[in-house]
């Protein structure tokens, strides 16, 4: 990570930077949500910074810690030319979970933002294709939010009841377990 880059970002954004830290040597800046696009463009195109690669884009849910704002979107930037890294974060409140997209700045952000939308329910404004990516369209809710129960399944397909009844009644399928083990009873 790079101290110099962080200093320059603070100098450039001034009041736009909400806080900074360098825990375990990872320079991090939390910036204002509305500035993320312009800050990213500036970080990519300024000489001496040249963050030409978006290493990772993800989100964190601080629901259990009761922190405000509830979500944080995390950008890990990497400069291949200058070999430096920087972490930029923006806070996102629960009531209005929208952030500007950066997918025209780094193409990889396209899928990463779709993933964040899918798993955390944070929308990205002006994203060209805001569909779910890992879960299926029929899925209701956002599984990585802390208030989504870990084992709440939303089945797309289950065997019809008559097949299971047949199996239980000792007809042809009785040789196999039809999905009525004690664990499954506990679940339902």
């Amino acid at each position: 990570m790079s101290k110099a880059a962080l200093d320059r970002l603070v100098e450039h954004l001034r009041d736009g930077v909400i806080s900074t830290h360098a825990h375990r040597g990872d320079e991090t800046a939390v910036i204002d949500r509305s500035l993320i696009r312009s800050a990213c463009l500036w970080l990519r195109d300024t000489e001496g910074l040249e963050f030409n690669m978006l290493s990772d884009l993800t989100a964190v849910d601080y629901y259990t810690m009761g922190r405000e704002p509830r979500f944080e979107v995390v950008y890990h930037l990497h400069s291949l030319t200058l070999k430096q890294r920087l972490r930029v974060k923006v806070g996102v409140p629960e009531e209005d979970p929208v952030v500007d997209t950066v997918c025209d700045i780094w193409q990889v952000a396209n899928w990463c933002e779709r993933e964040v939308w899918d798993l955390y329910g944070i929308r990205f404004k002006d994203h060209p294709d805001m569909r779910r990516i890992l879960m299926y369209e029929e899925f209701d809710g956002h599984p990585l939010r802390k208030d989504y129960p870990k084992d709440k399944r939303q089945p797309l397909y289950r065997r019809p009841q008559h097949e299971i009844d047949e199996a239980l009644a000792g007809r042809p399928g009785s040789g196999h377990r039809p999905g009525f083990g004690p664990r499954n009873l506990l679940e339902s």
Partner: protein
Amino acid sequence: MYGSDRLRSVSAPELDEGMPTEEMVLNVGPSHPATHGTVHIKLWLDGEQVTGAQVNVGYLHRGFEKECEAHTYGENFPYTDRLNYVSPMLNNVGYALAVEKLLGVEAPERAQYIRMIVGELARLCDHLTYSAAQVAEMGAFTPFFYAIKARDFLWDILEEISGARLTHSYVRIGGVAADMPDGWVERTLATLVQVETVIKEIDTLMTRNRIFMDRMQNVAVFSKEEAISHGWTGPCLRGSGVDYDVRKDYPYLFYDRLDFEVPIGTAGDNMDRYLVRMEEMRQSISMIKQCFDQIPEGDYQLHDPRITIPPKQQSYNTIEGLINHFKIVVDGIEVPAGEAYTYIEGGNGELGFYIVSDGTGRPLKCRCRPPCFMLMTALEKLLVGHMIADLVPTFDTLNMIGGECDR
């Protein structure tokens, strides 16, 4: 002259010239022989030429992050095994380094060397499996058998050190699970000789093979700039001619003490991505040998009651040991609150772990930066303009691993 050069120069539009075509939509997958793992590719075709593509991933989303949040730091190793299941050791190492960074500790020197050795062995497995799948899916079955044979040799020695053939869970926070067994070094060296022979065999069978070359060269060329913008790392990025290898540029463990070269491609086509991997295998073998020369005597694990469980002797015979063991297993290692991102060179590129801790024994967030997810973002672009038969080799060179891509 085999005459194939002439064929090669006839491009897809020329072949179709004068033929009436209409757009056709073709679904490849989710279960398709050419897609090892489940991925759905929707193609728009004009004759045999691909005019548009849409890639749908996520069929193997297994909730890695949710599971990690529900388990203690130590319990998460088996889940990391199953991310990139072709090179589980590398995932173990990456995850252990991330937790150690958060804790602010470092494993003993010997443990770090062992980690490097098993990591490079895992990289060998990964690239061997890649070449097996690559050639088998292009129709050549013999090299597949060779590569699988060599991989079984490697699995034998990995089994000997870790106890499992594939899902090792061998690395621990603060070290590794056990020291190298007696005679393991000699057996590993002997195995490496065998593996080297196999690599040579695959090389002679495939690399200069006319059909193979024709299907790989100048297919799916990806430029430097685009590769960077798409977040590519690892062999694919190096195939496009960017000199970036985490082991060289941000040395972790003791990679700065080893002498190795980073192969770089020039054209950025399928062939380069294949050649880079072939060369990396040879480099890995030499790295393992150097590690064996340098490895010091010493402990293979930290002895810190807050981090590692006490030796079995103690936990069975003393009450303090028992309580200590119990605390670590049930409550987990208490990691101070904070966040850390570590990255290592995985089989497919920069394998990152971003962990946020809230001060308890379970992570608040444990994110894996999946290198092949980033590679897959470019597949749509790579396919357009090529023939449909180019789908298979192109998809293979990206080496998509379902467990890592969809987590």
